[in-house]
């Protein structure tokens, strides 16, 4: 499946060209651009928030804000890089808003959320994911959510997060270390 992708992509107008046209006011370009990336935005939103409902809301917010933001797209980065940055920033803002309302349940921190899975083994798996995500500090969570995107490179993640490439690599090895520690903890009697 994957090998087909580049060929298909080539026949379509590139994201960057569409985005540049959208920035100049081309409504069709904007429509196809957003349609093309909507699911991507949603999935990243989910990974950042850990909850389907929050992901839906976040995606909606982003859709509402993109028309204004796209005008500022200057093709100095890949469109997806730019878009991921919009999503990460939006997630952070949403988190801040939630924090200011001092809600108990926030994103990956909400333990009960996925517990109801019916199949026990799946529940165990999901539970592990929950704990793994929750055990990470916020910056690592964001970095991980971002790098789980298919074909995301450290360089691109770094550009999105506004940190150096080395920092992303460092965070990834930190994440691996923490996951391993978590696993070890579980294995311990």
């Amino acid at each position, binding site marked *: 499946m*994957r090998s*087909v992708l580049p060929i298909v992509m080539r026949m*379509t*107008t590139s994201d*960057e060209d*569409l985005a540049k046209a959208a920035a100049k*006011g081309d*409504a069709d370009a*904007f*429509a*196809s651009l*957003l*349609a093309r990336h*909507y699911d991507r935005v949603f*999935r990243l939103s*989910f990974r950042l928030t850990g*909850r*389907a*409902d929050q992901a839906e809301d976040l995606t909606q*917010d982003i*859709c*509402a*804000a993109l*028309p*204004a*933001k796209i005008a500022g*797209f200057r*093709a100095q980065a890949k469109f997806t890089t730019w878009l991921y*940055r919009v999503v*990460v*920033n939006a997630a952070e*803002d*949403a988190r801040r808003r939630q924090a200011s*309302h001092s809600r108990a349940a926030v994103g990956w921190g909400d333990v009960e*959320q996925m517990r*109801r*899975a*019916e*199949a026990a*083994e*799946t529940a165990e798996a999901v539970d592990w*994911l929950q704990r*793994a995500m929750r055990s990470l500090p916020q910056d690592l969570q964001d970095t991980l959510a971002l790098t*789980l995107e*298919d*074909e*995301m*490179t*450290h360089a691109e993640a770094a550009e999105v997060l*506004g940190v150096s*490439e*080395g920092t992303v690599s*460092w965070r990834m*090895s*930190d994440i*691996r*270390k923490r*996951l*391993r520690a978590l696993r*070890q903890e579980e294995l311990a009697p």
Partner: protein
Amino acid sequence: MTDDLEDLKTLMDAVTPAADAQRRAKNLEQAQKIFTGAQGSRDAMRPTVKRGLMARVTEGAKSMLNALSHRGALTATTAIAAVALVMIVPQTRDYVVNPSSWSENRRAETPVQTAEADQEVEVDNSLLQDAPAEPVYEAPVVIEEPVAPAPRVRELSKRQMNGLGATADFGVASDGLYEGAASIAPLPGPDGLRLAPEQNTEAFANAETNPLKVTSEDPVSTFSIDVDTASYSIVRSSLLRGQLPPKEAVRVEEMVNYFPYSYPAPEGDAPFRPTITVSPTPWNDGTQLVHIGIQGALPQIEDRPPLNLVFLIDTSGSMQDANKLPLLKQSFRLLLSELRPEDQVSIVTYAGSAGQVLEPTAVSEKTKILTALDRLEAGGSTAGQAGLQQAYQVAEGMAEDGEVSRIILATDGDFNVGLSDPDALKDFIARKRDSGTFLSVLGFGRGNLDDATMQALAQNGNGQAAYIDTLGEARKVLVDQLTGALFPIANDVKIQVEFNPAQIAEYRLIGYETRALRREDFSNDKVDAGDIGAGHTVTAIYEVTPVGSDAIRNGPLRYAEQPVSDGSDEIGFFKMRYKLPGETESQLIEEPILSGQGQATGDAQFSYAIAGFGQLLRGGEYLGGWSYEDAIVLANGAKGEDPFGYRAEAVTLMRLAETLSQ
């Protein structure tokens, strides 16, 4: 092992629900309305999306039903949807959207301009205008398909989580994330197990090949020197396993700089000397190569001060492979035979067996050192002590006036060294560097190699990052280049070349993609750059197209001012800044580059062959019909004495690549 990350990816894919179709349609429509509305009064736009409570409840219920009937009908998803309904009520009040309140200042959404970005800005918009209308709309389906996460949960549910990921098919299942990584790795081995962590190698890999620059538009090229050699070793290790290395793993300048060259030595007190030659390009009759060869001074080895070496050795479980800890032990035995009796060695380990395993010991007590080395065992995986801090402590205790202390970190990529904040770690290393203790990093084994971090650490520690895959490579890095690796003679070495548009129409720098500096950073002494060790050589090559050549790729512009020859035969001006060790102010070397200057020596010719080879491996964009065969002929003709056989080995690799590329 580090399959945890893959597990997590697989799981994440599995629990990530599909976006609700109705909300999708609604959101797209809404966005479109806002977009159209914004065209008249963009500045005044404030899209406030207010959603009534009831609307949200019904919407939520719908989305639940929708999720239930959605493909896969994942058990996890139903749970999420059910909870989603519960959570709706408290959420309404804080989700009134006000996009204008988003704080943009944290990460500006227009990033710093990069070289590629410049390029991109200039991409012709005509593509868009000329494109037929229909492909614009068919994209989403095609793109999203390959990511379908649904079936994986079932696969998961069959497994105990503890053992998850150890099975072979998992590496394959979570395809996307490591695509770049996979290509770095020598493809899944017979067991099909994907070596996930090699994604890190990919980190440096993504710089596009330096583009052809038009001199009149962008006459100045600035970069940091690079003495790392890891890329060549990775290329070699791939080729020897019968795989062409992935393009991204090839850093041409590291391949060229892998080989020792003997350029004219510096005279007097100068730490090094640049030699510039301009000669015809082997792969293009219409262009020339500007070859910049920098030779570092080689202080008398006999006079060198005693060395204090602290080996900081990773003994985590993953190091037990034959090409890791055992190879490391052999390598250090080799190194030991090159040291002097008065040099001192200490060994500190991290992970598993903790702490200092050999107190500072004079090399004259060889048996004691060898015994300690032999006792090292890989195993255990407790979080490391502050291994690095301890190593520095030991190193500082060993140093006496005028002596050089260096920590040699040997690892397979697990930087579990006790400091958990990357910037703090870098600062720490940089501070220690200023206090006279340097850090080199040796990478062992494929599978966990964190190329980017290795380079970052070594760069901050004024050391060299090298990748050791064979005993031969260990000999080269540790023994033949012992002096260079251990005695820095100049720091923060930057090169800037300004080309004369009256002489040179176009130019491009071959390699150094990951070392590009901003023009203004050249004179900014705060910006870190590469270091040169004793006896090191550094080579940089530009391909230049003279004005009037029929090889010019960008035709003249109608409205741009045509550069007029000022009668000078300077084709460019070379500038180089460096700091002497311990100094904070840089010194400047500059000289003009004249057309036809110098004569390409055998060394230069060989470096051309390697530069051509590297470019072929990267796709050979600018090489025309020049082939591996041409590279082999050129390299064979320029092998010279080749006392260590490095060049002969390169020719073998070229032959392998030629076969593999057919």
